[in-house]
Structures are given as C-alpha cells and as structure tokens.
C-alpha cells in the first residue's frame, strides 16, 4: 500500500528552483494495478524514485505499507527496497557480467536467504517467465524481451509487496511489449500490487486505473475516498502487519 501525503520534491538548478513534485497525494492499495502516466519531464521519474525508496521526499509524507519512509537511513532504505520493492526498469538494468540465474539470485543474497531457498525461488521465477532453460545465458546473449523477462523474474523472486515498473516496454517492439504486459497481468491476477509508470496511453489503459501527473502535480481521483472502493485481491499474500494496521489508523487520508 502506497500513500503520498502532499509530497514535494524540489531541485535547485543553479538559481532556478524546479518543483519535480508539487504537493502530490496518491493512494494505491494492496493488489491494485495502477499506471502513472504523464509526458516526459512531468516528474514521473521523481515519483518513481520516491515510491521505490531510492530517494526521499523534501516535504510531505510517504507511507509504504504504513511505514513513514522519510526518517530512514540509507541502510534502512536499502533494507526496505530489498523486502518490499521489485524494480523493473526501461533499460532492464541487469548486471551484464552475470548469467540470468545469477541476476535473479542477487536480491535474494541481499535478503540473506539460504542457498536452497534461493535456488528454489530462482527456478520458480525463471519458470514463470519461461526462461528457465536459458538460465545460464548472460544478458548480451538475450533479446530485449528476454532481458526484461529476466528483470521481472528478478523482481518476482524477492516476493516484493510492490512491483515498480518504469516504462517496462519503452525499449521493446510492440509484440514483445504485449508479451511483457501479459506477464504483468498475470502477476496482478496473483494478487500483486503493480505500479507502472509510462508515457504511453495504450500501455497505461491496461491498468485498473491511471494516475495522471503533469508538471509535478498529481491527479489521483481515489485520494479522499473510502478504502473499500478498491477491491483488495483475495489472494494477496501480504497480510498487513501490526505496524501497518496501527499506522493506518493514524493515516489521515485513509
């Protein structure tokens, strides 16, 4: 669950002050498939960085599964990313010297999982994207679509609470792009929360709903509405923790 409460991000470029995010409020619930759409320069990437805990807000508050992200150190942010966020990037961002299976295994090493657990999860994730037979290939031995599927498998293996995809089809042809979108639909059917950032309306409209972003301003029609408006998938694996439930009570937007 993602809650943005009047989040702002300000960059200083020389004398000029750029508001990449201007009092943005967003509400994405567990199990939702949401697209965030906006033209380039609209603050999409900034939004994604903050949602993905790669960056922190200058103003306002960000709650991820009920935890306020603002007050965490670099180390804790890394830990949150490790457990809760599954990144899928436009340019795949696989490590080129590692095989598909090593790439998928890497986040599991950082999670501190045992060898057996890692092996099982890598197999499961690669089978899900139909790449288990190509597990020994390095990224440059694979097509763009295959690389993106490895990247999705990598995100999947760590069992995150949110899949955060930044223009996942941006570097792919249409047919391959559709294939990738199929995988996202599949993930969504399994009860995963998916946030898809794109500038492509055709891609955006495949999500349950779209959040528009323009000049750092966000238009999320669900903010302020009741939580029950959005159906929470029954098969969601993540049950809200004690911490999450407590902070939901405190959360003014809920």
């Amino acid at each position, binding site marked *: 669950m993602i809650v943005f409460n009047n989040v702002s991000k300000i960059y200083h470029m020389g004398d000029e002050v750029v508001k990449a995010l201007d009092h943005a409020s967003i509400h994405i619930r567990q199990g939702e498939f949401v697209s965030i759409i906006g033209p380039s320069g609209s603050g999409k990437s900034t939004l994604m960085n903050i949602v993905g805990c*790669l960056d922190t807000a200058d103003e306002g508050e960000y709650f991820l599964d009920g935890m306020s992200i603002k007050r965490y150190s670099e180390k804790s942010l890394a830990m949150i990313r490790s457990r809760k966020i599954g990144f899928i990037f436009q340019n795949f961002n696989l490590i080129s010297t590692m095989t598909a299976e090593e790439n998928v295994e890497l986040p599991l090493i950082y999670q501190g999982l045992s060898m057996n657990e890692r092996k099982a999860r890598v197999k499961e994730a690669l089978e899900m994207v139909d790449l288990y037979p190509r597990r020994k290939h390095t990224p440059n031995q694979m097509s763009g679509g295959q690389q993106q599927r490895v990247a999705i498998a990598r995100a999947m293996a760590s069992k995150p609470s949110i899949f955060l995809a930044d223009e996942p089809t941006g570097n792919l042809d249409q047919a391959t792009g559709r294939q990738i979108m199929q995988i996202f639909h599949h993930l969504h059917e399994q009860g995963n929360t998916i946030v898809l950032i794109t500038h492509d309306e055709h891609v955006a409209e495949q999500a349950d709903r779209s959040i528009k972003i323009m000049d750092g301003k966000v238009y999320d029609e669900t903010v302020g509405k009741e939580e029950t408006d959005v159906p929470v998938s029954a098969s969601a694996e993540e049950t809200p923790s004690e911490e999450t439930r407590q902070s939901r009570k405190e959360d003014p937007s809920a």
Partner: protein
Amino acid sequence: MILQSIKMALKSIKTNKLRSFLTMLGIIIGVFALVVLVSLVSGATNTITESISDIGSDMISVTMLDWGANNRLSIKEVESLADKLPNVAATAPAAQGSIDAKTKLKTENVMVYGTTPAYAEIQGYKMKYGRFLMKPDCENHTNVVVLNHDAAITFFGRDNCIGETLKLNGRAYRVIGVVDSGNQQMSMMSMLLNGGGMYTVYIPYTSLIRLASGIKLSVDSFYASAVDGNTGAAKDEINDYMMDKYGDEDMFYIFSQSEISEAMDKVTGTLSLLLGGIAAISLLVGGIGIMNIMLVSVTERTREIGIRKAIGAQPGVIRLQFLIEAMTLSIVGCLLGIVLSWITLQIINILANVSFGLSIPVILLSVLFSSGVGILFGIYPAHKAAKMKPIDALRFS
C-alpha cells in the same frame, strides 16, 4: 555474504584477466623481493652462524702486540691460566709458520700450527682418523703431525694416512691424525679466520720452535675456551690478568669468536631490515596500483553499483564487496609472489648447489602485509562505492 563477495571478486578478476594481472604485478614483485631477499639473507646467516659455532663460538684468542716486550708469557704460564682463572676452561699457545711440506706425491707450502693438546678442544675439532697431539708429544718435542682433511688428500691422495711421513723443511714427521673438516664452508671460514691456507697441519709447539726460526719459547699468541659458554667473563678475566702483568692495554689484543657472531648477526640483521624495507616499499607501490585500479573499477561499475543498491544491497554490503575485491587482488598477488619466490629459490639451489628454503615467518609477514595493503588501499575505493546515491548511480552511463 562474505563467501558470495569472494566469489564475485574472483569472477571480476577473471573477467579482467590482463588488468588484474597487471594490477597484481606490483604485489607479486613486492612479495617476491621480500621473500627471496630475506630468505637468501637468512639462509646465508644460518650457514655462517653454523660455521662459526662449528669453530667454537666460545673461543677467545689473545695476541701479543709488542714483540719486543720483556716479561713474556711462557708456555707453562699460558697453560696455568686455565687453573688460575675460574671461567677459563682451557688454554693453548699457538704459533704459526708457513713451511714447505713434501711427500712423494706433492710439494706445497702449508700453514703449520705449533700448539698443545688443548688446542683441538678449544677449536672444537673432531678427529676423523687417529688422534690429536698429546702431552708427551709436546714434552718430548716429537716429530708428529696432525693434518687437516685438505692437506691429507693433497699430500697422500687419501684421508686415512696415519703412519705416513710428511717432510717439513726436510724433517720427517709422522702423521698421527687427520682432523674432520666438516663441511666446505668450515674450511673456508677457518681460512678466513685463521689467515691460513687450505692446507693446515698441527705439530707440537716445541717442535715448531726447532722448525721455524722466528718461533721462540715465549708465546706470541694463545687461544682459550670459556667454562659453560661464559665467554664474556672469561675474556674479562684474561684481560685483567694481562693488565696486571703488563699494565698497558696496547701490549696485547683479546678477541672472542662470539664477537664475530655478534658482528655477523648485526650485519645480517641490518641487511634483512634494509632489504625487507625496500621490498615493503615496492609492496606499498603495489598497493597504490590496487587502489588506482579499484577506483577505475568503481567508476566503471557505477551502474552496476546502482542496480545492486536498487535491488536491496546495503552500503555495507557494497563496501565489503569492493574491499574483498581489493584484498583478493593483493592476496592472490601475494600467493603468486610466494610461488614465484619458491621456484626462484629452487633454481638458485640447483644452480649454486646450496639449500635456501622459504622462511615461514617471512611468508606469514608477506601475507599479513599484503592483506594490510589490500585493506589500506581498498578502503577508499570501497567507501566511494558504498556512499554512491542509488539514483545517481543508476543514471550513470
């Protein structure tokens, strides 16, 4: 996590073979220099020390400097010193002369020592055949001779030549014993220390007086050994005795074998330190090479660092990874250096027919030092990688 980091480090070394090798070369050369030089010095030191202790490290030699002095020491007086002075175990007067020796086989100049039975004990000689000089030989100034190994081989063609006759200045001497020379270094050492040639023979002191014109009943030099290795105390006692007798320290010169050992230890110690220091400097230079390449590596792999951080690597993990990579470079370099040193020492051993071994403390030292260098010069690049911001790193292309 550490195991994973080591695997990753080895992999990254493997993917950049040439670069890694060139980086390690600094460490390889440094360790090679350290191990080989120090092993050679310590090997040489051991050989020399053994030779010196073979000769008898508790030996004291006393030489009269003023040849014209009255009141000179007599053989009896020298021999009585062992009873008078508590820390002196034995004394033996010695005079030497270079004399022509002749057998049917060969005529050659030899170094003839005129001395008493105690000489063998003081010098630590072991007999290979026969016996050394005995008291009756000296009292009766009999014409008997003890040869060293080289002399026996040269004059008789074999070392068991008891009963044969050696002519010294035309007089016939009966061979009664051959001294076991031990190893080659010892005779080299005794040549150096005693100023004698390769051919050394020993006859009774009294016999030498008759043989050589310059030798008189008064003693010009004698050797002494100390009780239980108290060389210092024995030397002091002899010095006091001589001062009482002559009242002038310029009249005589006392010198102990252990002083050579000490001087030798000092020289080799300094040499080891100096060579070790030079090697340590080259190790440091190697470390700077590692830092250089690690900095390049961190910059090159900025994007990879960004990816790793995005998918959950904590700064500490990234720091550990690059630190381990730097240490792996230096330790692998160190091991290669040790292997190279071992091969080199083996080659030296075969070529020079010696036996220099790897010195274990030096190997430990070099492993320790290399690891230290790896950590020292790996910390900064690792820290640089660890503190990169994930978004900046991901944006880097």
